[in-house]
């Protein structure tokens, strides 16, 4: 019997192929006769297209076709799955029709024998643009004075939404004090290491289209692309080969995916498009993009009475799959891990002449956590209390779970004190504050930032999701005893080929390496939803677990039949006649390769049977219980009844260089609780990655459009991704509060780092600058900003909280 693997830090089985360069991404798939597509994209943020002259491009040797907006008008609109009341949905076509709405808006696509010919031809297309005034800032664009982007709406306001429970006016009135603060969540670029890419091949005889695309949602993408192309869904096969990261940017259906399919159908040849990095930054969805106004009411003892968040959410020019829904997640999580009796969010979703925003790791929740954590820090500063004390004061107790928030959620389980205490102990918090006092006396700028967060994961119950929140799995034991898992989740770096194998190995009594996890091919895998929203394990893994239970149920019946007993028990990875423990009788299994055909199976009474034995019996089908179907496979579709709510505490300790404004890390400690851990090494990896992206947002990253709507941070030279040297040593630990929502007890961890870390980092820097009267700073915390503050000298009665 193999040792149990769940809970152990097993190395990822997918890594050898990834780190040896043996994995296959879209661009690695080479088909004979493939054509190459290159896009002409708008260089204006807002302009009318008077004419397009592509004749020179069409005549360039090697060019097969040039398509513009009018050619592809029959392709259906790029879908938006978010349904909100009175939502204004612009008609989003695969190529620009009469106007361009943002820099990067696809205007034409050239298809040629080689990529270089296509690129050269793009330069020969002449577009006569007539520039139009731009609307860029989400708050200004919402005003009546702003130029309007989509004329048919007469406004840039895409929707307005108010949510929350409790009487917010009364709550703020009943407070001893109310603090207001404006906060900015700048636009970020998700920057998956592998940009997008699509390869399409149409088989005219079979009338079948195969699409290889780098996506997080193969089945949803297939459905939507089939609708866009007006073709039967079951004639479209969508394959996601290796996907080099998504971070939400590939939780989408893009114009380019449908276009490549359509072009292949026009030309009856395979066609490939691989996104360049500049294209990726201009025309793959962006994250965040909010200008918000916080109002937090509180009593003198630090008890919170109410929170209001009025926010202008930057949609970009069009909706992508979930664009308008992202700020609603912000609204849901505005209670943080605190008891706040009344909460209100007022969202104004605003069109701007920029690329669409959409889900980027955390997707609306980092914004919420940032708002709540900044608010708690402001309250603590105002009251002169320790930020830890104010947090603790407002925590619900572990006994209060499921905890109902004024945002309408039921937090499944939690022990916020536990995670906080552990993190405080790791940094020796009282001593740390003493050190800070000493440092301040010495004129050093030391800061301590604490963030206690909760997030909403394992998305989610279908009733609360745009398009189904369940996940599917089929588990098969092949005749040789090897286990095949087909998962509807579509892992792309999360390590589920390993964690799902661990679950199966323990449940079925096989080795991790006996299990193969197949995903991302709609012709092989049953319909599924995909990987996003920290759902892979908690929803997809649960489906695997439940399918295994069904399968084991059948296997048990076969075992009882073969063992000639009433009931067989599965003990230590083997079936035995009920009551008899393993080891009483040596366990012979039917040797693989020795065909039992022609020979009647021997009675197994009193012996034990491995899953391999059962699988062989199930497939040979000579000795099955009467009326039992042959084969050994089961499928499960798991629909969670609630979300899960992972939580934790992050603590950052920094010192700011007075001469340069640079931030130096002294400590970074995180205690995260993602429920039951299947593989702690995967958990740690996810936390690491999340913190790094969070640190990017807090300190460096910001997509900048100039006043003409030109994206000036258009390359990785200008968009400051954090590099290894900028990352502090991360000291991680965890607590484990199982979720009651699924039998694995798992909550999800993919986004925790991007949610918990940002407020801790900002808090630490703000805390360091407390002697200068600073109470709030907007991200990214650039040295020049800090240096300026330091240069201006200490102030006594400044209010960051305006």
């Amino acid at each position, binding site marked *: 019997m193999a040792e149990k693997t769940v809970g152990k830090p097993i190395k990822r089985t997918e890594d050898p192929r990834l780190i040896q360069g043996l994995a296959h991404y879209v661009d690695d798939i080479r088909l004979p006769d493939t054509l190459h597509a290159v896009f002409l994209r708008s*260089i*204006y943020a807002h302009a009318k297209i008077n004419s397009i002259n592509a004749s020179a491009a069409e005549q360039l040797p090697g060019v097969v076709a040039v398509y513009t907006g009018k050619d592809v008008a029959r392709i259906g609109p790029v879908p938006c799955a978010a349904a909100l009341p009175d939502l204004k949905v612009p008609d989003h076509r695969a190529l620009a029709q009469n106007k361009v709405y943002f*820099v990067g808006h696809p205007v034409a696509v050239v298809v040629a024998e080689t990529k270089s010919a296509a690129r050269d031809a793009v*330069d020969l297309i002449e577009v006569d643009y007539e520039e139009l005034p731009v609307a860029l800032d989400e708050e200004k664009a919402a005003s009546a004075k702003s130029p309007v982007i989509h004329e048919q709406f007469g406004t840039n306001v895409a929707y307005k939404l108010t949510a929350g429970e409790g009487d917010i006016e009364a709550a703020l009135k009943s407070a001893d004090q109310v603090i207001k603060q404006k906060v900015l969540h700048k636009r970020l670029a998700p920057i998956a290491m592998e940009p997008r890419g699509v390869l399409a091949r149409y088989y005219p005889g079979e009338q079948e289209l195969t699409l290889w695309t780098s996506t997080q949602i193969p089945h949803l993408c297939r459905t939507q692309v089939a609708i866009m192309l007006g073709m039967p869904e079951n004639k479209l096969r969508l394959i996601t080969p290796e996907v080099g990261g998504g971070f939400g940017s590939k939780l989408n259906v893009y114009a380019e995916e449908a276009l490549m399919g359509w072009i292949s159908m026009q030309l009856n040849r395979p066609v490939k498009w691989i996104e360049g990095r*500049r294209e990726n*930054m*201009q025309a793959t969805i962006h994250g965040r993009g909010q200008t918000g106004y916080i109002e937090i009411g509180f009593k003198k003892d630090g008890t919170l009475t109410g929170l209001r968040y009025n926010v202008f959410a930057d949609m970009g020019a069009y909706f992508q799959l979930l664009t308008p829904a992202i700020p609603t997640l912000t609204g849901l999580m505005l209670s943080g891990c605190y008891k706040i009796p009344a909460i209100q969010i007022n969202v104004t979703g605003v069109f701007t002449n920029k690329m669409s925003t959409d889900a980027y790791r955390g997707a609306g929740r980092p914004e919420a956590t940032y708002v709540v954590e900044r608010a708690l820090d402001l309250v603590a500063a105002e009251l002169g209390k320790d930020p830890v004390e104010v947090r603790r004061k407002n925590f619900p107790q572990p006994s209060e779970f499921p905890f109902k928030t004024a945002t309408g959620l039921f937090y499944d389980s939690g022990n916020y004190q536990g995670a906080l205490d552990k993190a405080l102990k790791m940094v020796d918090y009282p001593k740390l504050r003493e050190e800070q006092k000493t440092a301040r006396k010495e004129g050093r700028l030391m800061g301590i930032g604490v963030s206690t967060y909760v997030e909403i994961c394992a998305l989610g119950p279908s009733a609360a999701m745009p398009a189904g929140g369940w996940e599917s799995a089929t588990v098969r034991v092949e005749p040789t005893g090897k286990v095949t898992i087909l998962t509807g989740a579509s892992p792309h770096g999360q390590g589920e080929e390993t964690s799902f194998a661990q679950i199966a190995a323990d449940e079925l009594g096989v080795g991790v390496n006996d299990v193969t996890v197949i995903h991302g091919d709609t012709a092989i895998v049953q319909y599924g939803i995909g990987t996003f929203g920290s759902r892979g394990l908690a929803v997809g893994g649960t489906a695997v677990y439940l399918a295994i239970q069904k399968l084991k149920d059948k296997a048990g019946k076969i075992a009882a039949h073969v063992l000639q007993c009433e009931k067989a028990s599965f003990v230590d990875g083997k079936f035995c006649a009920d009551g008899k423990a393993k080891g009483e009788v040596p366990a012979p299994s039917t040797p693989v390769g020795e065909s039992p055909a022609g020979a009647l199976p021997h009675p197994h009474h009193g012996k034990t049977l491995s899953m391999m034995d059962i699988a062989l019996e199930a497939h040979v089908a000579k000795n099955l219980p009467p009326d039992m179907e042959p084969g050994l496979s089961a499928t499960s579709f798991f629909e969670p009844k609630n979300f899960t709510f992972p939580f934790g505490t992050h603590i950052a300790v920094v010192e700011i260089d007075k001469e340069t404004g640079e931030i130096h890390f002294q400590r970074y400690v995180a205690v995260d609780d993602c429920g039951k851990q299947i593989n702690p090494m995967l958990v740690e990896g996810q936390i690491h990655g999340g913190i790094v992206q969070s640190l990017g947002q807090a300190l460096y990253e910001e997509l900048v459009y*100039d006043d*003409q709507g*030109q*994206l*000036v941070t*258009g*390359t990785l*030279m*200008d968009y400051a991704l954090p590099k290894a040297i900028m990352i502090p040593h991360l000291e991680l630990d965890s607590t484990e509060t199982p979720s009651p929502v699924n039998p694995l007890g798992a909550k999800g961890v993919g986004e925790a780092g991007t949610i918990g870390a940002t407020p801790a980092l900002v808090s630490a820097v703000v805390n360091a600058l407390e002697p200068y009267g600073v109470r709030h700073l907007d991200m990214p915390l650039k040295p020049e900003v800090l240096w300026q503050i330091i240069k201006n000298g200490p102030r006594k009665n400044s209010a960051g909280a305006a």
Partner: protein
Amino acid sequence: MKIEGTYKIAAPRERVFAALTDPLILQKCIPGCEQMEKTGENQYHAKLTAGVGPVKGVFSATVSLRDIVSPQHYKLVVEGKGQPGFAKGSGELNLSDDAGATSIAYTGDVNVGGLLASVGQRMIQATGNMLAGKFFKALEAETAASNPLSSTGT
């Protein structure tokens, strides 16, 4: 992007102003300018090769001179388009006497788009200043070279 500065040329103001409004001289002085054709009164079509850092290409541009107050002021409006994107801008030139020489004060506002903006933006300011420097240096040489001619001619 804003460009501004002053440049001093050791030539009389009238001569400098004449040079600044002479398409032939402008063509010689504007860095990368390959062609400058008159298309109307104070209107020109120009072809120039320009680049910012790694982004290089051929631009076709319309140039117009407005608000001409000889010999002290005019406004220059340029709109250029090319394969690396577009650039459009306007600038004012003010000439004044400076101890026998001419001082040219210039201010300009330039917007760029396309590849120029996404790749070259960080280098545009430096490039703009460099190009302005090159232009005035060439203009100085031209006005100096035209000295003997003009002293005999006019």
